[in-house]
């Protein structure tokens, strides 16, 4: 499954994964275009997080291939993929709790050259302002609220100018203001830096509004892939995930 004429940034090609005989993901294929947002939806247990884990190298697929800008990345380590431009956030923000907010942003710079590192230091401070955490720069990360930790984790993914950011449930359980900040930051990052986003979320209306394309997984397989408005009208998506409203029924 790929769009004719568009050179994909990320290609997920025929990915399959089993856990002790249970099929988690089966023959999943889709692409993410450069400078775009792809929303990944589906019911709990449909394989969304497993797929993210495969894309960023935490899990190895049983079959299929992942390509980044045409180069095969299947089987590469997460730290190698980070260096190639794949960043990731988690369902529960994973900040380094005893480091300060600024120090959290410096951790991804460890293996960069000194010159790049100096520029990245400046960028880290700019990113704090970008996500609205500049007043908290010297606070220990554990002192931040859950929503602020999510913003910090998001800013940390951007420090090294990734090509694609994988976000797992970024809007779950956060204050509407934090959610609005995240959506603004994602849109501005796509527009200003040309990064792409692959976002897993149950907040379908938000995802429909911000995504260029959507994929719906049901029972580990692709139920629909395409324009958001088309995907949410697909029978398989309605039956397998969204359900029908009472009026429609």
């Amino acid at each position: 499954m790929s769009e004719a004429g568009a050179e994909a940034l990320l290609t997920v090609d025929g990915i399959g994964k089993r856990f002790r005989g249970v099929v988690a993901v089966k023959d999943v294929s889709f692409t993410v275009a450069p400078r775009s947002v792809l929303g990944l939806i589906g019911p709990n247990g449909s394989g969304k997080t497993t797929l993210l884990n495969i894309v960023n190298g935490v899990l190895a697929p049983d079959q299929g291939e992942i390509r980044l800008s045409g180069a095969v990345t299947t089987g590469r380590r997460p730290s190698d993929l980070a260096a190639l431009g794949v960043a990731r956030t988690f369902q529960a923000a994973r900040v380094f709790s005893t480091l300060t907010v600024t120090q959290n942003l410096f951790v991804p710079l460890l293996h960069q050259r000194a010159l790049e590192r100096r520029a990245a230091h400046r960028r880290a401070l700019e990113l704090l302002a970008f996500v609205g955490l500049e007043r908290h720069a010297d606070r220990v990360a554990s002192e931040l609220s859950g929503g602020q930790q999510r913003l910090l984790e998001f800013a940390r993914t951007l420090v090294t100018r990734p090509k694609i950011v994988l976000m797992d449930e970024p809007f779950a359980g956060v204050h509407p203001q934090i959610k609005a900040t995240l959506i603004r930051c994602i849109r501005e990052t796509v527009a200003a830096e040309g990064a792409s986003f692959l976002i897993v979320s149950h907040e379908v209306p938000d995802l429909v509004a911000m995504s260029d394309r959507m994929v719906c997984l049901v029972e580990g397989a692709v139920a629909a892939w395409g324009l958001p408005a088309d995907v949410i009208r697909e029978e398989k998506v309605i039956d397998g995930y969204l359900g029908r409203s009472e009026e429609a029924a």
Partner: protein
Amino acid sequence: MLTHVLSIVADGVLLGLIYAITGLGLSLVLGVMGIVNVAHSAFVMLGSFLAFELFRRFGVDPVVAFVLALPVFFVLGIVVYRVVITRVQSAAQTQGLVAMFGLMVLIENLGTIAWTTDTRVVTASYTNASLVLGGVVLPHVRLIAGGLALLLIGGVWAFLRFTLTGRAIRAMGQNPEAARIVGVDIARLSAVMFGLGIACAGAAGVALAMVFPFSPNTQVVWLAWAFLVVILGGLGSVASTLAAGIAVGLIQSVCTAVMPFDTVYLVLYVLLAVILTVRREGLSRAVRRTI
């Protein structure tokens, strides 16, 4: 009377600084990497014999040996990490423990072959000299060994706090998965961390050799001291390890002054049992998984 008390306290603090670096590497490796390195004390023993051989063969002062021990044992630690730890890190916890125990036995036996079980001492020119301050007697060797230990502790603390690598090590200790995903090369950093732990062990061995007689078998006693400091101080915190080392030094110093020497160890280990019962997370309230 006051002079006597001050002497006991000074002695305890200086000893405590040496105990702190004896436990420091063990605490960091256990706290950050989750590796129970029971071979830690074998490297401490090798550090003592490095000081002994350098002094005996070339007349190298133990202070110089202390400085030399750091890079030598750092490299040794990285070799051990690559050869042993990487093979057992993902295996069951017991397998890792048995491997490190085997390494400890191997090093001790090689030590016995090389140096026999005879007790050795390193007698520098200042070994028997003392500084007397207001009636308080401070032996030069303890002052120098304690000072070197304090410098090393300060250096390790500054490294972990102010350098990018140090902060990444702390990040790895808190959340290895997240550290890996933000691009930290966990294997490389783990090797550095283990090397640092062994470097601390080697330097501690030199400091201990300045103060105590030793033989290859003494390492078992030092392992107990190191674990005592780690259990009291908790895992992975330099400041808590320093506090725990000084506490152990003071307890030993006071007990030695007021009761028969044979009962000192008894008191320490009863205290240890009480601490483990009442406050199993140690002074710093830090508990962590182990491999």
